């Protein structure tokens, strides 16, 4: 059974706003399937007594007190923005013409 289908890769590409050509889809579907297959081997060694793990460290409850720390200046915050206007990040049209 394949780890991921070509259709699933196409779907993920669309969600990630990646425009993939047909041959790219074939290419990546094969690669991703190999990768998933390799990672899936972990399940072979992990028995029922090993729960799925999202964090490698046995830590919980890392929290900070509710105390204000200095923020960036707006100039610093906007310094990496490709475009700005009225001290705000300027982004292209969100909704296309419909």
């Amino acid at each position, binding site marked *: 059974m394949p780890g991921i289908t070509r259709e699933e890769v196409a779907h993920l590409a669309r*969600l990630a706003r990646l425009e993939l050509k047909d041959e790219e889809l074939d290419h990546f579907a094969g690669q991703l399937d190999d990768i998933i297959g390799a990672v899936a081997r972990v399940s072979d060694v992990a028995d029922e007594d090993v729960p799925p793990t999202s964090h490698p460290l046995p830590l*919980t409850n890392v*929290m900070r007190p509710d105390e204000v720390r*200095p*923020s960036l200046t707006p100039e610093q915050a906007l310094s990496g923005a490709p475009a700005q206007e009225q001290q705000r*990040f300027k982004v292209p049209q*969100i*909704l296309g013409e*419909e």
Partner: protein
Amino acid sequence: MTVTELVSYEDALASYDPVMGLEVHVELGTRTKMFCGCSTALGAEPNTQTCPVCLGLPGSLPVVNATAVESTIRIGLALNCEIAEWCRFARKNYFYPDMPKNFQISQYDEPIAFNGYLDVQLEDGEVFRVEIERAHMEEDTGKSTHIGGATGRIHGASHSLLDYNRAGIPLVEIVTKPIVGAGERAPEVARAYVAELRELIRALGVSEARMEMGQMRCDVNLSLRPHGTETFGTRSETKNVNSLRSVERATRFEIQRHAAVLDAGGKIVQETRHFHEDTGSTTSGRVKEEAEDYRYFPEPDLVPVAPSREWVEKLRAELPELPRVRRNRLREQWGISQHEMQSVLNAGAIDLIVATIDAGAPADQARKWWMGELARRANEQGTELSALPITPAQVARVCALVAEGSLNDKLARQTIEGVLAGEGEPDEVVEKRGLKVVSDTGALSKAVDEAIAANEAIAEKIRGGKVQAAGALVGAVMKATRGQADAARVRELILEKLGVQG
């Protein structure tokens, strides 16, 4: 756009049973954001409260705000929820410029609080139990300004501008289980639920929950099913309904709209809808074709939250009296009806009246001033009662001046007017405006003599034993003294001078 002829509300309810789901977002009133130390203060200049964490810059790492976690647990406990022994945050992936990270940190299948309920009391006193599915922690998004469109709306805009001061402010999302069995009272239940939740949030002190400021926002999910059927119909999701009145109107409108579509043999499209305050109607937003493919996964940058049972029990023990319980207790103490209490609640006057009573005023007097003169003035000025420039202690002082006979009702109103106008404390206003009731015999005697001289016919009647006619002379004296005379003393003097017994 297709315009649907609505079915009348009564006809809709005759055929269908409404099922609701309410999602409420509350911005917590913490000093800092959910995952970084940026200030949450309102009204700051754009992009002055951001840092690498809330801007999603590479290499930055979020750290959870302890107070936000505590506030969420307290909300969960007040909603009779179970509190997770262990839970994680999750990434909700989507592309929209309101989140610079391209994902929102939220909670997915492991909410910190779940399985609770909130009892809400309707206007006639009936209690309706709304079951709570979950309450979870997440972060707010930035604020978009759309440029170039005719009305500042996203449609037709040429580009948009983003202010990320709000991005990362702690949010708690509270989701109900499907609310069934409300029938024709569904819109009323929806409103009462949001109102009660707002009271609860305020009582806990975790947020001001001001809907007009966007600190509390409601999404109304609604579907209809034919009477006698069990399966739920397809639902619509009306987003960002931002006042109590709108919650009720949006629910009612959607019931009528769904019924019209279903009656005509049509199908309800599962979609997001927008509510319009001006018309009370909703219009179609985006259709959810790709049924929420957010690809949630456990947030790798945050370790799990595992609230100890000791902490949870400590927070439970410290919960304040719940608003509904408190209202019923006060209602009995004040000896007023359910309906009157509802008016006090709607006016936002409960805490003000309690504070006025605590400052020494009798309950009926405290209630009279806040619900009468002051409510009228707040209404005239279009402000909240609590925003009036008068304190409960000042109102209590006015009540005391009335009780000791220094002021009558009319003078008390003028005193309050002076306080509201910034003329100082009640005693100063009385002093400066010369409002004290005149009960001094010397000062009143002349006015009484004049009134008798000017109304000889009435005086004669009184001499003849028609004591009730004295009212007319009292009125004349009051008029002459511009309402400042002590009416009871005036009456005594009149009768004395005319030689009759009161």
